[in-house]
């Protein structure tokens, strides 16, 4: 064992991952399963066909309390936190003073509860919690919940499966959240996820995690899914991976995440970096995150240069690989604004050769969220 291995943290499901044959790799300071014996390709396709169970306990969970935590939280995000209805979750961006993206996160307002429930990225949680705690000092108190585990059950059969262990849960619609019991233990369940499929995230006490995971894995529709398939699923869904598709040099307009900003917030301009972001909202940013479909079968990986048809470099791939459901390579990256329109023909420079590619709308694979019918 090296020092690096000894320093890795384990989630409450570590023993179960080993029992299931998980291939463990270091990720964000944790030993996490990159895949199980089925392999990335089968795990990916299984999630889109049936249901997959993901251990995302490495993510950061916390509760934000105070006299008006929603108002306080808006000082570090342009999302409409005050407008989150009871029993709903919302996606938001944590911004630096300069308007750069420090992380993306979920905020939940549980019915009848004063505190907000937050989930942030694993790799960023220590930095995020310190930043939020400092910025909101005197207005709100952040209490990290390191003893909680988080499971994601994703796929078209996820609702059928979870209903057996939490009767009534399938009545939730996309982005709704509720305190319920799952397999007999108290849980916060939201109808969300990061695969583009219908599904749920299940927050429970760490001590209950194995019981819930085993109950779900005992269902015929469910396979355990590793980080490898989680990455290919989120990429097909057009969703960003922090540290790759966005970082603190990028603002919400450049990242094509303006939809995550509240209308009221955009009008008021009352968020960090409002000068820069307001200018970009009005005039457009110099570069923009886009989806790319390479011609042929060769994947274009992160870091691949993007050139226009004269050979001039106009951008760079930030996530790229092969989409098992698309059965084709796919990528996202940043390009100069004049090359960001859907249908624009570009080249990807893979191993010194120019491979044709086209700018396309995302998601690459249609999402299947259980939205409220309007």
């Amino acid at each position: 064992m090296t020092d690096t291995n000894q320093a890795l943290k384990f989630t409450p499901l570590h023993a179960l991952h080993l029992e299931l044959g998980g291939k463990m790799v270091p990720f964000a300071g944790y030993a996490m399963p990159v895949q199980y014996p089925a392999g990335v390709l089968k795990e990916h396709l299984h999630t889109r066909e049936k249901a997959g169970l993901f251990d995302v306990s490495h993510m950061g969970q916390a509760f934000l309390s105070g006299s008006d935590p929603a108002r306080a939280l808006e000082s570090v995000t342009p999302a409409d936190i005050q407008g989150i209805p009871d029993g709903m979750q919302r996606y938001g961006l944590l911004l630096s003073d300069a308007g750069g993206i420090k992380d993306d996160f979920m905020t939940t307002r549980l019915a009848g509860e004063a505190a907000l429930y937050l989930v942030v990225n694993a790799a960023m949680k220590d930095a995020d919690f310190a930043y939020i705690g400092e910025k909101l000092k005197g207005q709100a108190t952040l209490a990290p919940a390191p003893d909680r585990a988080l499971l994601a059950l994703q796929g078209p059969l996820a609702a059928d499966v979870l209903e057996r262990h939490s009767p009534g849960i399938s009545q939730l619609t996309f982005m709704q959240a509720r305190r319920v019991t799952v397999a007999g233990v108290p849980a916060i369940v939201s109808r969300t996820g990061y695969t583009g499929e219908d599904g749920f995230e299940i927050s429970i006490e760490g001590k209950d995690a194995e019981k819930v995971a085993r109950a779900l894995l005992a269902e015929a529709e469910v396979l355990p899914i590793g980080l490898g398939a989680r990455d290919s699923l989120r990429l097909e869904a057009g969703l960003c991976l922090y540290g790759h598709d966005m970082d603190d040099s990028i603002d919400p307009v450049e990242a094509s995440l303006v939809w995550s900003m509240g209308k009221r917030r955009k009008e008021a301009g009352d968020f960090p970096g409002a000068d820069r972001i307001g200018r970009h909202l009005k005039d457009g940013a110099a570069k923009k995150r886009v989806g790319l479909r390479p011609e042929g079968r060769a994947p274009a990986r992160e870091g691949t240069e993007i050139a226009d048809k004269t050979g001039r470099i106009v951008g760079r791939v930030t996530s790229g690989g092969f989409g098992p459901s698309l059965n084709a390579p796919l990528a996202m990256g940043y390009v100069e604004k004049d090359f960001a329109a859907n249908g624009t023909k570009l080249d990807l420079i893979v191993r010194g050769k120019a491979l044709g590619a086209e700018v396309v709308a995302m998601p690459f694979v249609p999402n299947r969220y259980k939205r409220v019918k309007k």
Partner: protein
Amino acid sequence: MSEVRFTDQHEWVRLEGDEGTVGITRHAAEQLGDVVFVELPQAGRKVGAGGEAAVVESVKAASEVYAPVGGEVTASNSALEAEPAKVNEDPEGAGWFFKLKLSDKAEFAKLMDAAAYQEFVKGL
């Protein structure tokens, strides 16, 4: 009678006369996971022992395939372009990558035999 040798980069080469057939080992295929793309060298290309000769990509990552011995490429397994999964199904058979005419058979003799390669993998 053909003979198979292995490299510490997890390629195999089967020698018949002065022609070698090259692929990646079962161990390498298992480590890579599901192969989704291969890039093969064209016939006529000259490669040195240990030189980059092909590329194999799984869902997650791209890896180089090195020439176990030097020589001139005589053929590549174009069936892999349509069916890259053959690399996982039969890595040391139908999943071969390319053939080459050896420039120096002494390079072949220096590689590991099956028993030595098994020991090498065990030690990883």
